[in-house]
């Protein structure tokens, strides 16, 4: 298990982090995009304290989603451009390890982007970002997002119009998770929390649902990946 799965997975993560550290083309461009969304919407929509609850969750997840999609679209393009994917597929490594290595790197990139954007949104829109419930919603949603995004990024990288194909394929599948994330974020920003701090009705309904979707994605996506990369 350690030799066949964990070592190659660790090697993949190390390689992608090193490449990103040197090129910085994924995180910097996604961060700039997210920052632009935060600033433009803040001025365009005149988000006063009365409207924060209805606007902030949507704006936050629009920025996270599009910045994440930008980052995700590069995941397999670099492999394909430099022939790395063929090298990976030639190695005696399970396709699951390749997929999960890529998904883990995408998850890390997205969490870095979100950790940088969340305080900016909190300051500009004037809401508190310090919430365990919000952190759980972001973590669970990003896990699902990275898992499905990695799969569709692998599919889109094989097409000519990959920038269009990725969101077109990806958003319909991830929509239920995104709706849940917006609902939970709205509840947290509106201060709908119970005595345990874990939020009221919306949180109790949506967080478990997001977790169930994540579990499904984690089972189905590696399996589909192993089929599509064979051709």
């Amino acid at each position: 298990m350690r030799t066949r799965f964990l070592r190659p997975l660790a090697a993949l993560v190390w390689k992608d982090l090193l490449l990103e550290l040197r090129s910085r083309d994924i995180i910097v461009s996604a961060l700039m995009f997210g920052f632009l969304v935060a600033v433009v919407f803040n001025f365009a929509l005149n988000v006063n304290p009365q409207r924060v609850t209805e606007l902030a969750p949507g704006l936050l997840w629009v920025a996270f989603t599009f910045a994440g999609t930008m980052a995700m679209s590069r995941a397999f393009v670099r492999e394909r451009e430099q022939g790395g994917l063929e090298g990976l597929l030639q190695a005696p490594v399970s396709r699951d390890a390749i997929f999960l290595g890529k998904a883990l790197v995408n998850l890390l990139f997205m969490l870095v982007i979100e950790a940088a954007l969340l305080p900016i949104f909190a300051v500009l829109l004037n809401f508190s970002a310090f919430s365990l419930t919000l952190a759980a919603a972001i973590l669970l949603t990003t896990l699902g997002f990275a898992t499905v995004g990695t799969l569709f990024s692998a599919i889109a990288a094989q097409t000519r119009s990959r920038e269009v194909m990725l969101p077109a394929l990806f958003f319909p599948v991830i929509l239920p998770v995104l709706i849940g994330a917006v609902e939970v974020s709205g509840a947290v920003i509106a201060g709908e929390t119970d005595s345990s701090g874990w939020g009221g009705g919306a949180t109790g309904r949506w967080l478990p649902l997001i977790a169930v979707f994540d579990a499904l994605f984690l089972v189905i996506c590696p399996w589909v990946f192993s089929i599509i990369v064979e051709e």
Partner: protein
Amino acid sequence: MANPSSGNAIDVSGLEKGFDDLPVLWDLDLTLGWGEFLVIFGANGSGKTTLLRTLSGQTRPDSGRIRIAGFDLRRQAEAARRRIGVVSHSGFLYDDLTCRENLSFYGRLYSLPDLKARVAGALERVGLSLRADRRVRSLSHGMQKRLAIARALLHQPSLLLLDEPESGLDRDSVAALAALLQEWTAAGQSVVMTTHNTNLGLAWASRAATLAGGRLGFDRAAA
């Protein structure tokens, strides 16, 4: 990688592969023994690259059976792939990693022991020791090709699949590659190579064949 005591380096029967209803490989049979060096000639589009990609497991055949070193390429894919080294037109190298980092990465994918020493040895073998810590994007095309050869040899495969490996190499590098492959086959490992260079192919190989109409023909010992 030790060769198994039974079986051939390659056993292929009834291999067929096509793209968009256009057959490229058609009812192709091939057997390659240990220590054999097969060179395949063929016109552009005759299916040489497709044959190598299919033998390496990168392209799934439409039908037929492929065994590499006694392992079924479909059912025992990981064991079979562990015994194959590939040099193709794409070097499988990352431009922003150094030569040493690229080889270390592939060594870790293959879970190789004594990786540092192996990587140093592989770099020395292709004459890139002095450039070990240079990024791949700063190397010439010929040096990248040599690094790709080092990557293919790193895990000591039993079978080397080479797609026009001499392209982009200078005269000295071609001579070094010839010596390396001779040493390789003398140790009982096998090679399949495609090339357009007839003189070079016939000089290097122990067996030559042509690929035309989706099948191997003129399959006989090289002069």
